[in-house]
């Protein structure tokens, strides 16, 4: 069992996983599902409780330990949603609420402005690669470019979009993750 200063350090390190857990949860539940924040908090609270109870013995990395908890709690979430406990009267709606809808609309407007600033040669790569979800190889075929050209343009376009959209657009990245 890990005790004393080591346990305290582990607890502090656990808090650093909020972003990575949040990203995984949001991706699993659906990006605009409002339940993601509650589930993220539940996972981190469980991680802290398990560390305090000595259930994390350092046999794996802390990241792997928290990933296992995250995967299990996400599976539990879907299990609970796919069946109905007979005591439940009104299941919560998984649809985005007004707050999420407003946030979504704002993000689209900002994205539109950022895309407008791109040169056409970057915009067409972004269109196929990010909007249509094609791979770099497929984008290259669609645009008559080489894969290396697509990679260069996609990387540069991502850099420009990141600069143009600012850090608030990327809630799961930024200082503290690197």
């Amino acid at each position, binding site marked *: 069992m890990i005790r004393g200063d080591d346990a305290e350090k582990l607890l502090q390190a656990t808090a650093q*996983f909020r*972003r*990575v857990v949040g*990203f*995984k949860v949001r*991706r699993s539940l659906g*990006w*605009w599902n409002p339940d993601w924040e509650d589930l993220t908090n539940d996972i981190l609270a469980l991680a802290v409780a398990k560390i305090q109870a000595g259930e994390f013995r350092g046999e794996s*990395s802390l*990241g*792997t330990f*928290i*990933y296992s908890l*995250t*995967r299990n709690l996400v599976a539990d979430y*879907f*299990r609970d949603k*796919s*069946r*109905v*406990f*007979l*005591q439940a*009267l009104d*299941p919560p709606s998984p649809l985005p609420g007004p707050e999420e809808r407003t946030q*979504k609309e704002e*993000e*689209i407007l900002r*994205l*539109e402005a950022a*895309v*407008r600033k791109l040169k*056409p040669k970057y*915009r*067409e790569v*972004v*269109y*196929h690669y*990010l*909007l249509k*979800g094609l*791979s*770099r190889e497929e984008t290259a075929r*669609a*645009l*008559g470019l080489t894969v290396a050209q697509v990679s260069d343009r996609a990387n540069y376009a*991502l850099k420009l*979009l*990141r600069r143009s959209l600012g850090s608030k*657009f*990327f*809630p*799961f*990245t930024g200082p503290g*993750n*690197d």
Partner: protein
Amino acid sequence: MTRCRFEDEIEAYLRGSLDPEGEDRFEEHYFNCPSCFRLTAERGALREAFKAGGEKAFPARPRPRPVPGWVYGAAAAASLIAAVLLFLPPPRPKPLPFTFSGDETVRGAGIAVVEPRGSLPAPPGRLAWEPVPNAARYEVVLTSGQETLWTTETKDPEVGLPPDLKARLQEGGVYLWRVRAFAAEGRMLAFSEKTSFTVGR
């Protein structure tokens, strides 16, 4: 700076084209690799925003390129494959991923409401519904807006409203009620939709 070997999997992960084991392995990796996580999260957030915004995020659509000749050949081959696939038997549907235990059931077992519903000239004397087989008791809830006005239990498929409650049902008020049926051991068997009625209109 060395490039992580998992970086090549970011794209496939975000497109959902990794197999389940590959996805697990990649996710466990980015829980341990801040560099891969940063790239994955950044691209993931953009992809999701583009998915939500769709074409709206592209005020000026990119100019289509002239179609190379080989594309026509590929299209012809794809048509041939599609024609062959049409004659294959449809794939079996996947089984549901989860099973139900004894104390659970699929939502949808409903109770048919008899009365009251709709517009009433005066407060109703009773709430009534179709009996549910094997129901030992029914639980009734009457609400107005966010306020619960009355809850009660009964063994019969109807229940009379107490006089003091009837007096509280104001003219023009909108009221909702629902009923749940329970078996003798406490298991819920069925429930009704929320049913509304108004008084005096």
